[in-house]
């Protein structure tokens, strides 16, 4: 469904992504893992149209979206939950959700999308008139995902959804991602919590210094000695 070919991206004159090619099949969960600064977030921002691509192609259902403006890319069915949630903390929960349906296509079904968001996260219904900044960390992450779902995406890109959450909430978050995936939402997941990400991913790519160094099935990479040594460590591999 999403296909990237030979992508080069520069971030302030520094090349952050080098000749990256990857593909995400419809209905799958694909994880992008790697250390801090490996270029994972830049890659997502390039897909969203925030950061321009220098070379290469990004195709979505066969249509090119390379360097289209972000609003067109959202309207095509790609939704991006940025790192750190980036909620509008002075706006209410309801206002945040409504803005998720800003694009013309999504706005037509805004009431149904709201109902679905409240069904998925009942706590958001109770807090709809509260400012987003007053929510707890876990609730804020729920709101960020609910807001991204308001655009009726076919693919959801999540940048570090477990960051800053307690271990129990991290588990809830990964269960939620699998739950969304079972409702026909394709997932492209960027995570530093590599163990958890690889456990739920159908396929995964390991990114290092802006280049893809390894690719394979999630479980396959999880048991790879090199991955274990470099990214997971003995402490985690025992789990």
């Amino acid at each position, binding site marked *: 469904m999403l296909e990237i070919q030979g992508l080069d991206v520069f971030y302030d004159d520094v090349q952050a992504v080098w000749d990256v090619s990857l593909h995400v099949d419809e209905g799958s969960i694909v994880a992008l893992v790697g250390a801090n600064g490996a270029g994972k977030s830049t890659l997502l921002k390039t897909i969203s149209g925030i950061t321009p691509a220098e070379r290469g192609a990004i195709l979505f259902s066969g249509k090119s979206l390379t360097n289209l403006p972000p609003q067109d890319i*959202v309207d095509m069915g790609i939704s991006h939950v940025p790192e750190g949630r980036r909620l509008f903390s002075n706006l209410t929960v309801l*206002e945040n959700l409504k803005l998720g349906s800003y694009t013309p296509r999504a706005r037509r079904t805004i009431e149904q999308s709201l109902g679905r968001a409240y069904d998925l996260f009942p706590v958001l219904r109770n807090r709809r008139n509260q400012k987003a900044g007053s929510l707890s960390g876990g609730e804020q992450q729920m709101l960020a995902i609910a807001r991204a779902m308001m*655009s009726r995406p076919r693919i959801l890109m999540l940048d570090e959804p477990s960051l800053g959450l307690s271990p129990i909430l991290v588990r809830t978050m990964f269960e939620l991602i699998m739950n969304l995936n079972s409702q026909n939402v394709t997932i492209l997941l960027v995570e530093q919590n590599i163990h958890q990400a690889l456990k739920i991913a159908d396929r995964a790519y390991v990114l290092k210094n802006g280049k893809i160094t390894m690719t394979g099935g999630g479980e396959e990479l999880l048991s790879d000695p090199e991955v274990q040594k470099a990214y997971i460590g003995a402490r985690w591999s025992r789990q």
Partner: protein
Amino acid sequence: MLEILNLNVIIQLLINGILFGTMYGIAAIGLSLIFGTMRIIFLAQGSMIILFAYVCYWLFELLGLDPYISLILIVLISLWLGAGIYRALFKGAVAQEDKNISLLIAIGLMFLLENLMTVFWTANPRSISTSYTSYVFRPMGIGIPFNRLMGFIMAVLSTTGVVLFLKKTFIGIAVRAAAEDMEAATLLGINPHRVNGTAFAIGTGLAGIAGVELATIYPFDPFFGFIFVLKAMIALAIGGIGSVFGALLGGIILGLLESLASFFIGGGWSDAVSYAVFLLILMLRPEGLLVRSVKKA
């Protein structure tokens, strides 16, 4: 001096200050909106106000249009002109992501307007005097000039209108969101140029209203605009950037300060006092005098 210091004089000073301050207030709301999404101080805001004061003056002198009727026309023109100025002058600079370019364009526009207005209308002060300009209500012995009361009503109505727009319309909510986090807004499909253009249109629309208010109250000349934008910045420093009613209140407080200073210290002192207050607030409470302390996040 003590014998004139009775209650009536004080009330008169307060009323004059409040009524005049609303003009600073709506200029400040315009600055605040444009700053919100574009992160620049639109320094030409004051010159835009003067421009619309001249438009009001011309409509009155040449066509005999009553200023409160031409207000409707001027609001429409100014909304349209604001969106046009954004498209023509700022859109390209915003795409460059360098705020300094936008700021320089605003300064250039200010000087251009000042000089064009000098060519068209000369540097002599102008004012509009209608049959009712000098009419003063006298409830309980306190004089309320009709034109200042109208200005106050216009300011309160337009402020309420802006607040409703920002709270109730989709694009208004998007403007508030973009003021908090433009990139996050962009990721939801909000076009930065749409929200910037909207903020500009409303900011300039408010300049139109302030221009009519000014033309009916006070003599103005082409170079008054720069002082006006400084006063609007002081109003923002008092009210805090980002709150619409805060900006209006900041303008009113500034109007009060100036009114009291010119009476108690002397006419020439009102500007000096307001700039001193500006510096003091920036030194002691840079987030704005009326703003609750910024949460440490």
